[in-house]
């Protein structure tokens, strides 16, 4: 088992010895935890349960045993079904003393769903790979990401008629080294989009059409949208979600898409809210999606891009989030992220009008 870098865990648990017969034991000796990665069969599942039963039988000080399944190959449904079957054949005493934490591709399952075992689930979520709506997602990082983040920061400043930015600040905002930002600026210089100033500042001189078209073409790879559908069977209710978001105000999350467009352009031309677009600030490429389950447990991740999503979250992998603070309300994503959201929604005319609202000279084809 990998070393677990979690303060709470290391305070509460120690590695189990051969005599313990399990992977981890609480420091008071009352809780045994067995961790199994990549469980492949129901037979293995049953064997793990049996092993824990033996450990409890052998060591009378163990009051509670917890089986942690990390990234099992088995589906959550099969695990739940097997556990329901096993529960009927094991004694009530044993049932009460056994807990299961399954970190599956469909999301975590904690049985019984109590705070202590949820805490264990949180610890082992750090060990998992893949994605699910109620865990942390680590984004892939295309090599070109730094360049396009630099373009977006410069474009936001240009659209908002802001002062030139110091090259060092730009590197800091992107989250890259000085040589990397120099290389990005050279690329923009070749197309004559930027002007350098003597005080080591830089700014766009015009709309970077070529880079923008690349941004649109590479949107899915660069911004890696995480799409959610409403699986409740009810009619999706974006307005209800927005109201809840405004009450929750999850950290590092800003409104994007149509909602942000209405902030930036008061007469934004679209009736209704087709879906909720959010931007998640993820400077270290890690997005914490736990808030989604609290927002609505009906929201389930889908990979199928042909299905209409109710919620789309786009990680923003750079240091400067450029969120527009809205006081007591949710912040709003910057105009560039907002425009990219509109384009992805197919609202190309509205996207063009939004850019033109900031700079009349911008005309998207």
């Amino acid at each position: 088992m990998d070393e677990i870098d979690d303060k709470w865990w290391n305070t509460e648990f120690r590695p189990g010895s051969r005599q313990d017969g399990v992977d981890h034991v609480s420091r008071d000796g009352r809780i045994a935890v067995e961790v199994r990665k990549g469980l492949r069969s129901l037979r293995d599942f049953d064997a793990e349960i049996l092993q824990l039963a033996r450990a409890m039988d052998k060591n009378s000080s163990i009051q509670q045993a917890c089986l942690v399944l990390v990234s099992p190959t088995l589906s959550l449904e099969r695990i739940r079904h097997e556990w329901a079957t096993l529960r009927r054949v094991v004694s009530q005493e044993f049932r009460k003393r056994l807990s299961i934490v399954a970190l599956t591709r469909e999301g975590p399952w904690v049985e019984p769903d109590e705070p202590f075992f949820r805490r264990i689930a949180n610890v082992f979520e750090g060990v998992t790979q893949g994605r699910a709506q109620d865990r942390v997602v680590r984004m892939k990082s295309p090599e070109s990401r730094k360049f396009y983040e630099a373009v977006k920061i410069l474009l936001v400043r240009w659209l908002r008629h802001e002062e030139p930015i110091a090259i060092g600040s730009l590197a800091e905002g992107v989250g890259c080294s000085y040589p990397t930002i120099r290389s990005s600026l050279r690329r923009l210089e070749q197309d004559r989009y930027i002007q350098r100033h003597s005080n080591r500042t830089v700014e766009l001189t015009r709309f970077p059409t070529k880079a923008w078209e690349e941004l649109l073409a590479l949107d899915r790879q660069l911004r890696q949208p995480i799409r959610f559908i409403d699986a409740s069977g009810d009619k999706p209710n974006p307005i209800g979600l927005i109201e809840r978001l405004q009450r929750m105000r999850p950290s590092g999350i800003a409104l994007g898409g149509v909602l942000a467009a209405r902030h930036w352009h008061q007469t934004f031309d679209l009736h209704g809210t087709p879906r909720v677009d959010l931007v998640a600030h993820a400077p270290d490429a890690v997005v914490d999606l736990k808030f989604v389950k609290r927002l609505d447990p009906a929201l389930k991740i889908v990979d199928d891009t042909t299905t209409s999503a109710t919620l789309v979250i786009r990680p923003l992998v750079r240091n400067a989030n450029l969120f527009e603070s809205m006081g007591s309300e949710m912040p709003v994503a910057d105009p560039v992220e907002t425009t990219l959201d509109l384009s992805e929604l197919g609202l190309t005319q509205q996207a063009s009008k939004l850019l033109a609202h900031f700079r009349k000279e911008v005309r998207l084809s």
Partner: protein
Amino acid sequence: MNKLDPNVLFARIVSDIPAELHEYLFVTGSLAAAYHFQAQLEGRAVNTKDADLVVHPAGNVTSCRGMAEKLLGTGWVRTEDCYPRRTPQPEDELRAIRLYPPNSDDYFIEFLNLPDRDQQTPKRWHPIELSDGWYGLPSFRFMALTSVGRLRSDVGLEYAAPPMMALSNLLSHPEVGRTRIESGAMKGTLRSAKDLGRVLALAVLAGRDETAAWTEQWLAGLKQCFPDEWKLLAAQAGRGLRELLGDEAALDEARGTTDIGLLSGRNTTSQQLRIAGERLLVDVIEPLEQAAS
């Protein structure tokens, strides 16, 4: 099972039961739920013949005896499974008072009683002597909650508020257990799956915006009915539901009960029921637990 329009059934009960008894009665169970959510049910009839009538206040056995005698004297008749015992003991062999209205078997009423505040057992039978022998008046420990915040129907008869019926059912099942229903259309079904399934059905019909307000109502109800235990009860309110959501087979049984009950004709899946349960946990039960901690 018969299908009855809840509006019609409420009107029938009001017309069949003498007016002077109405103030001591309120409707609970599926009929109360179907009446309250008639808009969401879009005119669909309710799959029940059973009108659960709660006699209040708590311990009102004398009143219940008087009511039963009065109804029997005005043409109400006992159902097939309502017959007297010669002695008041053993209590769990007493039969509940179930009566058909005069000249009809379209529906029947069943008398229930509110529990005394100190009742600790989940269900208790109060012996009640009628002219032909002994019957039982059941009182369920958490049924007192259904008397809180009662609503008044258009025909004047009161009925239990859905959130309080939901809480009563939740607390009645701190675990899924193995007890199965022994008779009727749901014979063989886990008792907890039926009652917790009812909670999920109520949540589905109420919708998320409405259930978000349940926490406050639950807290007020718990404090009123269980002033010494409300924190403990609040802390364990979600236990059975969490277990149900983690038990595919039991959840499917719950879906089966809602399919022939309040959610009939809606093609609700187990996944949708699970979502309703998870929403209830996030929106109502966890805030309740926090309020009690």
